[in-house]
């Protein structure tokens, strides 16, 4: 079925429009081809990565490069690249699927893979001229060359546009000389091409350049030593120094001063792909944990039979399930949006750029949510392993160390939290998402008398969907009041923005889990989806508490007196279930299933 423009939600609109379960894509919708890709990638992960885990942990950087080459031979590096430039042009869902299943063996490889296929290649496919694309992309798509992305500097991290690296035009106007220092550059040790951001004269914004790097003819480029890191130990991370590095003018990416835009847009794609990259890690952590818990006996009982462990298994499963649900939902939205734009006459390049940009809010939400879920999962994984989990002999400690970086790179989670709300407010001001109308309605509702009727909740998820609608009201109420109070100064109130973003994130994740499950229950029957239903309910229950906590803090921080009382009353009303789910029972049901299957099985 063709997707029509008006049917497809715009980025951020999930907050104010109801999504029907039939309209979300779920992992159960993978095509036969996608399933085959998934199996191929999983086999690669087992054979080439997991079987050699110790080499990655021993900082064998050359091995990372070797496995990257093998990934190139199998076509994994060119999945997202258009066919005209040597890639496979497989669509955004397939791109994400490969990224998901290739990333769980070790964070070292997943970082190398992500940095190369994402920020190392995408800036050229998205912003390059035809000549630049012809010249460089085929080499990157096949793994003949590897790419690195040089944005961060010692003094310019989250404030990326403040970099001090300079690009100076030569007298003959044919080249630029680049001078400066970049740091935390992934793949620096084995890259052949760098996307470098530098400032021309006193420009407000930085400019992007494609810089070739040949070890035998370094052109003023020197590399620092490998950094010694907490995790992702065999991912090459070095400083890169540019000393009069000559770059031909035709290697400028997009226009002068366009670098910051490139940097930000490349990161949008990077963010959702990072979420994808954390998903299979979560599944693997849970599988490893439950296998251990089924084997390990204390007090003559497998520890998986203890309620304390069941609690953990259930929470880990529910968060992995919600992460999958939300990530693939957004991935398909992006794919459909790109297709719509291509159909409307956009070039592939422009369609992809705008398609992803449209869902930048969701990309930030996913990056934050899934990177934190994988960290929590790894942490509980260690706890289930007990003392053994703390040992390098078991896989949990590496999983925990590797997960930690996901909260930092591709924009810290703090930056992404503030961005998600900031972008939403901007979209509302531009009229792309109508927040004002719904926010006004919520205010009217607050003044009115609440209904005392008891609705009919017999249909699956009817109460849960009503809860989601109410959580959306919490966001509109809190964010609406905060915008009224602070106007453009809102961005100065970071704690408030972060609280609002936590509400936003929980709404998107919980809604995605519910919609996926509802869709599957309609297709496969409620009995077949009993555990998935339990996971969706558990996730939502947790989401409600997070929303309540953040809503309360926000309201108290900016409202006083009657207004505060009214908003808190509203909040109470919006986070109240009519029938509370028995969360302990739900957790037991989820844990029993995971235990019986001895793996993450959804």
């Amino acid at each position: 079925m063709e997707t029509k423009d008006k049917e497809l939600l715009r980025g951020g609109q999930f907050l104010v429009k109801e999504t029907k379960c039939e309209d979300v894509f779920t992992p159960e919708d993978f095509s036969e081809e996608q399933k085959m890709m998934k199996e191929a990638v999983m086999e690669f992960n087992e054979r080439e990565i997991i079987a050699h885990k110790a080499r990655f942990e021993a900082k064998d950087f050359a091995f990372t490069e070797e496995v990257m080459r093998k990934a190139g031979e199998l076509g994994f590096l060119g999945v997202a690249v258009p066919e005209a430039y040597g890639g496979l042009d497989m669509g955004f869902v397939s791109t994400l699927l490969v990224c998901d299943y290739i990333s769980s063996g070790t964070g070292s490889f997943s970082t190398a893979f992500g940095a190369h296929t994402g920020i190392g290649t995408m800036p050229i496919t998205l912003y390059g001229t035809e000549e630049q694309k012809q010249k460089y992309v085929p080499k990157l798509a096949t793994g003949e060359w590897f790419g690195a992305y040089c944005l961060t500097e010692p003094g310019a991290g989250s404030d990326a546009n403040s970099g001090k690296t300079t690009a100076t035009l030569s007298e003959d106007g044919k080249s630029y000389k680049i001078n400066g220092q970049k740091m935390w550059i992934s793949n620096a040790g084995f890259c052949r091409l760098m996307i470098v951001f530098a400032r021309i004269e006193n420009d407000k914004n930085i400019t992007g350049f494609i810089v070739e790097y040949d070890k035998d003819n370094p052109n003023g480029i020197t590399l620092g030593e490998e950094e010694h890191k907490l995790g992702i130990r065999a991912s090459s991370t070095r400083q890169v120094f540019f000393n009069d590095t000559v770059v031909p003018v035709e290697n400028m990416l997009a226009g002068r001063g366009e670098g910051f835009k490139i940097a930000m847009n490349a990161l949008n794609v990077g963010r959702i792909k990072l979420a994808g990259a954390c998903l299979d890690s979560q599944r693997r952590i849970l599988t490893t944990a439950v296998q251990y818990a089924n084997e390990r006996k204390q007090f003559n009982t497998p520890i998986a039979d203890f309620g304390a462990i069941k609690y953990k298994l259930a929470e880990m499963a529910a968060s992995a399930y919600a992460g999958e649900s939300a990530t693939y939902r957004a991935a398909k939205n992006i794919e459909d949006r790109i297709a719509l734009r291509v159909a409307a006459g956009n070039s592939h390049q422009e369609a992809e750029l705008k398609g992803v940009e449209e869902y930048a809010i969701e990309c930030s939400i996913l990056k934050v949510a899934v990177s934190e879920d994988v960290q929590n999962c790894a942490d509980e994984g260690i706890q289930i392993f007990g003392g053994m989990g703390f040992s390098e002999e078991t896989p949990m400690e590496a999983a925990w160390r590797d997960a930690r970086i996901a909260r930092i790179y591709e924009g810290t989670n703090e930056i992404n939290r503030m961005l998600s709300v900031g972008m939403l407010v901007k979209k509302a001001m531009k009229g792309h998402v109508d927040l004002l109308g719904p926010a006004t309605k919520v205010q009217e509702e607050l003044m009115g008398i609440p209904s005392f009727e008891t609705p009919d909740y017999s249909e699956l998820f009817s109460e849960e969907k009503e809860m989601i609608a109410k959580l959306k009201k919490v966001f509109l109420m809190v964010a609406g009041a905060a915008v009224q109070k602070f106007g453009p100064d809102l961005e100065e109130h970071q704690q408030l923005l972060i609280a609002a973003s936590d509400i936003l994130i929980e709404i998107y994740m919980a809604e995605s889990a519910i919609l996926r499950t509802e869709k599957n229950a309609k297709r496969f029957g409620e009995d077949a989806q009993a555990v998935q239903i339990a996971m969706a309910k558990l996730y939502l229950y947790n989401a409600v508490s997070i929303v309540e906590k953040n809503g309360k803090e926000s309201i108290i921080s900016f409202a006083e007196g009657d207004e505060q009382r009214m908003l808190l009353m509203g909040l109470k009303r919006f986070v109240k279930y009519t029938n509370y789910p028995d969360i302990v029972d739900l957790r037991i049901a989820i844990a029993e299933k995971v235990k019986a299957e001895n793996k993450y099985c959804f």
Partner: protein
Amino acid sequence: MKILVCISHVPDTTSKINFTEGDTKFDTTGVQFVINPNDEFGLTRAMWFKEKQGASVDVVNVGGPETEPTLRKALAIGADAAIRVNTAATDGFAVAQQLAKVVQDGGYDLVIAGRESIDYNGGMVPGMLAGLIKANFVTNCISLEVEGTNVKAVREIDGGKETVSTSLPLVIGGQKGLVEESDLRIPNMRGIMMARQKPLKVVEPVDANTETASVKFEKPAPKGAIKLIDPDNVEELVNLLHNEAKVI
């Protein structure tokens, strides 16, 4: 050289085995299916003949539509075309008769089958197929070289190896050794995309005699509880082994 590789669609080795309908049917719920490992060694060897000696490689399966993903995987690995004989694979002789028809219609010189499938472990099809099409037959084959129509094959025998010479047309029952596990191929992305465009022909079955029918399946008895006996209490141990376990 025209090669046909017979591909069985079997449960992954880690699957949980259960039966339904009064223990007469294998329960496929939640089971992941794969290419039979013995067949995959054969397919990988066939790809070598394709790449080094210009052979063509077709794959065949006798089974319902649910087996097509397994055939598509074989295409993604590099087979040229696939044939599915549209009938359930129940009895070894019936399957051999279906395959015989495919071999005769396709004029294949070499048929590579696994020595047995890892689901029902019949191990009968390659031999019966060779008999039906009057081809030579080597089973438990761990190495295979073809020069013109001359074949040198190595068989695994109890405690050693046997090298045999024979000629095409030939059916082999292959196994690990034809290639090693590390030689098995992961389908590449382009292969997966191209698999969609390669022919997968569905042919209707010929009338075939079914000589056997499953009556029921049984799983091995579950392991009993373990009794721990104090090392000082040897008498009790002997007593239990004699009277309860009845092993001494």
